[in-house]
């Protein structure tokens, strides 16, 4: 009886050791198998028809994708700010099994509804505007940005009526900037006119003490119009593209609210990858600053505005 018990103990020891050997041989293979899984597929859906406005952000996105093992697909709309068109693109990407989406929402409310109703089935990170149901938003504090831009105008001695133009009234992020600027200007006792059709052509040559726009595309348009029409009305914009930087340098753009598009793109893709892998990291609002032409070559600004490609 005792001998058979000890034989069983010996057998158990051998089986346990054998199993441990097999486990240590198989585990690395499994780990390698896990490592060799296909990279994440992340789709980026912009709200513009022209992706060059997001060129800097795209550099950040690609850096994050490279580091995190993700494949990026950047999609633009046939028509800028087409909320329905964007929603159908987003749905199609979700159906095609994208692991996560980064969306610059044309209409955050519509997108939020789709998310809340569970239509998409994959995590979404929103850029620029907060979206209900999206677990992460990468954007500056839009209200504060609008107020800071208005304060820059006030600091420049702006005392007359101010034109606030918004070509994307459905974009809550841009609208928050407009609302912040309007609030600050009205508190300062200035007359404010809000233009939400984005039709600057007939308005820019009015008697404005300042014109303010709140997104890069409209800033570029306003810059081009101003130079084309030979106006000298102070122009305040948001977002610094190469054209806007040149406008700042030439003095066409008086000041612009700027942030690191590279960081925005990087954080958006990093957040999307984390959500796709089941974790979540809430990002703080992106820091922004008000840039003027004379500051553009300051080392700290040029590093942020013109990424090393």
């Amino acid at each position, binding site marked *: 009886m005792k001998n058979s018990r*000890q034989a069983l103990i*010996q057998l158990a020891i051998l089986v346990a050791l054998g199993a441990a050997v097999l486990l240590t041989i198989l585990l690395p293979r499994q780990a390698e198998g896990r490592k060799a899984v296909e990279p994440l597929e992340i789709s980026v859906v912009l709200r513009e028809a022209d992706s060059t406005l997001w060129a800097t952000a795209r550099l950040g996105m690609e850096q994050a994708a490279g580091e995190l093992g993700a494949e990026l697909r950047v999609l633009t709309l046939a028509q800028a700010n087409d909320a329905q068109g964007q929603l159908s693109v987003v749905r199609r990407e979700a159906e095609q099994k994208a692991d996560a989406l980064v969306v610059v929402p044309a209409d955050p409310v519509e997108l939020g509804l789709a998310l809340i109703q569970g239509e998409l089935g994959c995590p979404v990170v929103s850029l620029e505007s907060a979206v209900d149901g999206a677990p992460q938003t990468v954007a500056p504090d839009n209200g504060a940005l609008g107020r800071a831009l208005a304060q820059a105008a006030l600091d420049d001695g702006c005392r007359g009526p101010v034109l606030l133009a918004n070509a994307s009234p459905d974009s809550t992020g841009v609208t928050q900037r407009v609302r912040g600027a309007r609030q600050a200007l009205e508190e300062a006792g200035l007359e404010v006119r809000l233009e939400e059709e984005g039709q600057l052509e007939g308005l820019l040559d009015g008697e404005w003490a300042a014109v303010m726009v709140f997104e890069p595309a409209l800033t570029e348009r306003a810059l081009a119009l101003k130079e084309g029409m030979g106006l000298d009305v102070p122009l305040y914009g948001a977002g610094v593209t*190469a054209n806007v930087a040149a406008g700042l340098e030439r003095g066409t753009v008086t000041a612009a609210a700027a942030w690191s598009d590279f960081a925005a793109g*990087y954080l958006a893709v990093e957040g999307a990858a984390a959500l796709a892998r089941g974790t979540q990291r809430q990002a703080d609002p992106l820091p922004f600053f008000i840039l003027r032409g004379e500051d553009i070559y300051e080392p700290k600004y040029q590093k942020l505005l013109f990424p090393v490609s």
Partner: protein
Amino acid sequence: MRGLLKGLAGRVVKRYQGMSIQMVLSLSFTAVALVGVVFMGGSLLLRFSDSARNLSQQATRRVLAQVNLNLDSYLRRMMRVSDTMYYRVIKNTDLASDTLDEEMGLLYEENRDALVSIALFDAAGRLVEAAPLSGMKASAEPSQSRWFRAAAERMENLHFSTPHIQELFDDPDYRYRWVVSLSRQVQLTRGGDTESGVLLVDMSFNGIAQVCREVELPNGGYVYLVSREGELIYHPRQQLIYAGLLEENNVAAAGYSDGTHEESFQGKAREVTVKTVGYTGWKLVGVAPSAPLWGETDSVLLFGLSLLLFSAFLMAFLNFRVSAYIADPIRRLDQAVKELEAGGETVEVDVEGGCYEVQRLSRSIRSMVSTLRHLMDDIIEQEEQKRRSELEVLHSQINPHFLYNTLDSVIWMTECGRTQEAVQMVTSLARLFRISLSGGRRMIPLADELEHARHYLNIQQIRYRNRFDAQVEARPGTQGLYTLKLTVQPLLENAIYHGMAGAEEDGLIRVDAYREGDDLVIDVMDNGVGMPPEKAACLLEEHGPESGGSGSGIGVRNVHRRVCLTFGEGYGLTIFSEPDEGTTVRVRLPVLDEGAAARYQ
């Protein structure tokens, strides 16, 4: 703590005592071998780790040397451009009569893959000539630039700036290019007079970035480039650093001398290898996470663990087999002894194989078992003899001849009117039988034995018409002693039948009991015919001659055997006899009180 250790040791000892020798051997071998393997594995791991670290450092140094070489080559090329422009073009040109645009354009075209612009400024910072763009921005102030001031201050040197956006020329495409400016002070000739100027060669930062970009170091390391002040020139993740999403220890690294340094940054140990780039004072910094003790990756650790476990498995298997081989003879021996304990009669203690000690033990046990069996046979034989003796005693008790003769004598005496003697005889007979029975006990008081002898002698005296006298005496010191029942009567019978056969009323039979040390001695003496001593000597032998005549010497031998079987060879009968002088039979018994006698019952 001490109590805990003691308790632990106690438990180990208890567990050890409950284990088989095979288990103890196999577990001990395995444990010792495992300790050895772990020790060796640890040593190898440390050695491997050191080697891996050295290899990693060497690899990093080699990579940095190669990057430095490429960077050096790139910077030399830019310096050659600057030298060519200065020594072959500017020095040979009088700006009052000639222009530089053709040669400068040609030089730019030859090196446009690495250049952004070449420009010449006078001492006041006014543009003299530039390629490919010649329209300066209205806001440009070359004389206020760091590269210009550095060239103006140290005329003999070539000056490399840190990367910055090219800010001098109007670019119709609004391209903001990162450049590293190489500036030097030059002597311009204008109308035969010489004046100072600054030659600027803006090289594309991409060229430097490409030199560093594809470099990979062991353990996921990377390379970055800093100025002597610690300003970041190139870093694979520099945009993240600029955006505040990442930090680098670049300022500290700028203070390191060339070589490998250990540092801890953000809680992580790193090996930082520094190499200073020539001409510029920049520093190439290779950062590699410190290799963990167990090697490069988890897979190395798992591989080591797998080897260790496989060794343990192999050793355990071999140890179990070897210990089984060693312990098997002992186990079989143990099994045989257990069977013996259980009373097995046909157990063969014959263990083949095993080491010398086991075989010797096996032989010893076999010999012991054999002795035991012989002893048991002897005991059985003795018991058989004892049983036979007892039967003979019983037989003698109810000797029909004795009974017949006695009763016949009683009848004869009754018929002759010798009633008194008849009563005496019957009374003695009754007492004789009562003591003979004694409740079936083997040991009876000496007094009873002597009384038994007296009654026997009474009967025989009456039968033999008082042809002999009889005396029975127990000396002081024998009171309360016990003796083997019916020891004396067969001797008296022998004395009467053989000793008194020729007696004529002068025969004497004496029984004398006394103590001699720890022995009780009972002498039965007669003054009969006696016998030669040699005959007396062989009377007690197992197959000795009978004494002849009526009666039998068997009774004497029987008494002797009974005493020897009961008390051992030191006790028994001794016969002293001389012809015509009589015979003394001496019975030697141990002194037994009632308690001691009870053990022989």
